[in-house]
């Protein structure tokens, strides 16, 4: 028999998985040692989350083998995973807001007294013990809804530990945490690993990976690219592995020129909003596409939201073509000629049950009605034009939006807003969940909008996209603009990635 320490906590061998004939994982090997923090890195769509979902029993693998502590296992459900000691720290799913920390930690396996009744004092005491063992200080009787995101996350971790998890999966755990909260989280993780718990750490943040992780596994396009000790690999090489020095030619920049001597279309001065937008100033010129690059949680989205009046601004000024404007809510923004293409089109952008035509007309009701009565002749014409202009497929105005592909849904959102004749379009991750072909179409659309004189601010995690269309890129970190770079001055994707990571190239 081998020594316990030499057996991997979890080993995934030759894992393959296809969806609808597309291979998303190809013979991937991944193993985690006891007490290590193992980073899992790769671009969106590289296969990280598929791999983790297989480990949690959400997806079934097509082929391959999983062993836990050396024993082959079959994981068919989330419950199975839990029984094998695999715990997932969810971003938002698994806590009941109205119950206390202790009640959540022991949910559905509450300690009981002799009469078979739940004893909250009992669960509070046990929860206290668990929290203490991992160095988390939370009032166990506090309602989860009263806790900050960071403490909710720590509660999730405590819950997994109380369920005797031997391996914890953390997916972008720091995305919504402040610096001191990240430090507290890392302290807890250190404490856990010293007691033999293994951690799979999914993150885009290179600095954190180097700070907390022991090894890294990098996936690209469903393939295993590398598994290395972080002592043996430079950040530059990690990024090179992640991006694969991908061809960005399909979206090569057309180098169109912007006249920056005129008054900017939009000027933002010292904008402060919430705790995620700190003193942001920027200028946006006519026909310009300005990229905001930064990691998830850097404040990119919040900058757009604050400009558009979705979040309250605590201070700062906005100028449109030189005149100061006050935008207190999205209605003001719309009336001032702004449009916002939100990140989550299913929830924020569209009514999924409604037709293409109904969705497009939602933002243009005034234009398409007379004395509150809808003009159906005009609506028909209007939707037909939008469908042709934006190449929405299939070209049926009456089709329910939920039956369209992700890319075509996004085109409907864009069509709807462009029809309001905005001069400034704010776009938040317009190509999330869109297939590669349509991605290119959407980026071309963005370009053509700019060519017609619209000014665009584009937030994207896909650096090739930013490189493909932006004239200027602002690097955002912790709610501030850290750097500004002209498209011509970016050497390649790696160069931009290093800037986003805050590592000087």
């Amino acid at each position: 028999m081998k020594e316990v320490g030499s057996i991997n906590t979890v080993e995934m061998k030759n894992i393959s998985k296809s969806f609808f004939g597309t291979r998303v994982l190809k013979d991937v090997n991944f193993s985690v040692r006891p007490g290590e923090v193992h980073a899992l890195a790769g671009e969106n769509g590289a296969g990280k989350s598929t791999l983790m979902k297989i480990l949690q029993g959400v997806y079934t693998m097509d082929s391959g083998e999983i062993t836990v502590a050396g024993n082959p296992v079959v994981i068919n459900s989330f419950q199975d995973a839990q029984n094998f000691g695999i715990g997932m720290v969810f971003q938002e799913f698994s806590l009941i807001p109205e119950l206390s920390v202790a009640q959540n930690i022991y949910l559905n396996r509450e300690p009981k007294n002799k009469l078979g009744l739940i004893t909250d004092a009992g669960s509070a005491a046990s929860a206290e013990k668990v929290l203490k063992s991992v160095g988390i200080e939370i009032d166990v009787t506090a309602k989860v809804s009263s806790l900050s995101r960071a403490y909710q996350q720590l509660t999730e971790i405590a819950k997994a530990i109380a369920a005797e998890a031997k391996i914890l999966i953390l997916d972008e755990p720091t995305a919504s945490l402040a610096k001191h909260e990240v430090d507290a989280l890392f302290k807890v993780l250190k404490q856990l690993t010293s007691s033999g718990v293994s951690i799979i750490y999914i993150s885009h943040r290179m600095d954190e990976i180097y700070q907390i992780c022991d090894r890294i596994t990098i996936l690209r396009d469903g393939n295993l690219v590398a598994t290395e000790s972080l002592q043996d690999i430079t950040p530059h090489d990690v990024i090179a592995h992640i991006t694969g020095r991908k061809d960005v030619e399909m979206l090569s920049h057309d180098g169109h020129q912007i006249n920056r001597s005129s008054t900017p279309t939009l000027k933002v001065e010292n904008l402060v909003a919430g705790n995620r937008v700190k003193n942001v100033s920027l200028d946006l010129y006519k026909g310009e596409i300005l990229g905001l690059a930064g990691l998830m949680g850097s404040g990119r989205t919040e900058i757009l939201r604050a400009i558009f009046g979705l979040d309250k601004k605590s201070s700062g000024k906005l100028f449109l073509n030189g005149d100061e404007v006050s935008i207190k809510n999205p209605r003001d923004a719309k009336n001032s000629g702004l449009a916002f293409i939100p990140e989550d089109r299913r929830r924020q952008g569209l009514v999924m049950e409604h037709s293409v035509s109904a969705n497009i007309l939602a933002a243009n009701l005034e234009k398409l009605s007379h004395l509150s009565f809808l003009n159906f002749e005009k609506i028909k014409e209007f939707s037909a034009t939008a469908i042709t202009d934006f190449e929405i497929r299939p070209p049926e105005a009456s089709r329910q939006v939920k039956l369209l592909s992700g890319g075509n849904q996004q085109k409907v959102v864009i069509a709807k807003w462009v029809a309001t004749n905005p001069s400034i379009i704010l776009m938040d991750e317009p190509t999330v969940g869109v297939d590669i072909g349509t991605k290119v179409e959407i980026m071309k659309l963005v370009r053509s909008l700019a060519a017609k004189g619209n000014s665009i601010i584009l937030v994207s995690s896909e650096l090739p996209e930013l490189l493909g269309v932006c004239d200027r890129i602002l690097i955002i970190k912790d709610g501030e603009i850290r750097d500004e770079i002209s498209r011509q001055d970016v050497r390649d994707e790696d160069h931009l990635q290093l800037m986003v990571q805050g590592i000087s190239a």
Partner: protein
Amino acid sequence: MNIKSLIRFDWRSSFIYWMFALIFLFFALLLHNDGFLGPNNLLNIFRQTATISVMAVAMTFVIACAEIDLSIGGVAGLSSVVVALMIRDHGAVAGVCAGLGVGLIVGTANGLLVSRIGIPSFLVTLGMQGVAVGTAALITDYAPIPILNDSFNRIFGSGSIGKFPSVIFWSFSAVLIGWITLTRTTLGRRILATGGNRDAAEFNGIDTKRIKFTVLLISSTVAAIAGMIYAGRLQTGRYEWGAGDELSAIAAVILGGTSLFGGGGTIIGTLFGALLVGLINNGLILAGLPVSEQQIIRGLIIILAVALAKKK
């Protein structure tokens, strides 16, 4: 964080007690010459709210689970006539069994339609309300059915234990059992989890469909018991008993501080909510207002109270 939670004044959960005290004081001052404070009148308030408080306790579970049951008034009426008919023909034991059977059958139907087929409980129970009332009217041809069995009438509301009317024991048992179930049993915890965040509850291995089925079954069965209390107190079964009680019960639950969106619930709050509704009814009757004005004022007070309770 401990200190914070101590000094944080929880307006929502303590609101009902302030409101109750305020309205009680108001009627006490206004109506002290009309016998409002007399022990008989105070007992009367309890007696009149007994059926509502019994149903409201069960409704707390339903609402905490983020569902609704609009059929309880109809179930109470149907149960009252089935009990009366069965007692007439087969005796008290058969009557009670048949009454409970009504609750179990309707509850099972509601529960299956909501949890298995996925029809919103609002619609299922709205329809079931009509079915129950209609059936009750049909089998009695709209006529009241007298109940001549004394022991049944004594146990279910007409009698008293010592000085206290027996209906009060029904409502206090309901509150006690409800309170223990909600705060101290796994069922209660699973109901709160299901209503609070269904996805999360599923991830914790809770069979949320079964929980939804269970709350609707409880609600109907309890409504059938309330129907028997009506039958015993009024010594008659009639299809109209319980009409509109679903709204009073929902008002009691919401006034008591349970969120209409599920996830939280307080049985003691519900009891006071029911008593508040009873208090308002009693005060308005004593004040000698005509029924039309009573209805208007009662409606306005409830809207106002819920609006105030929502304030943060």
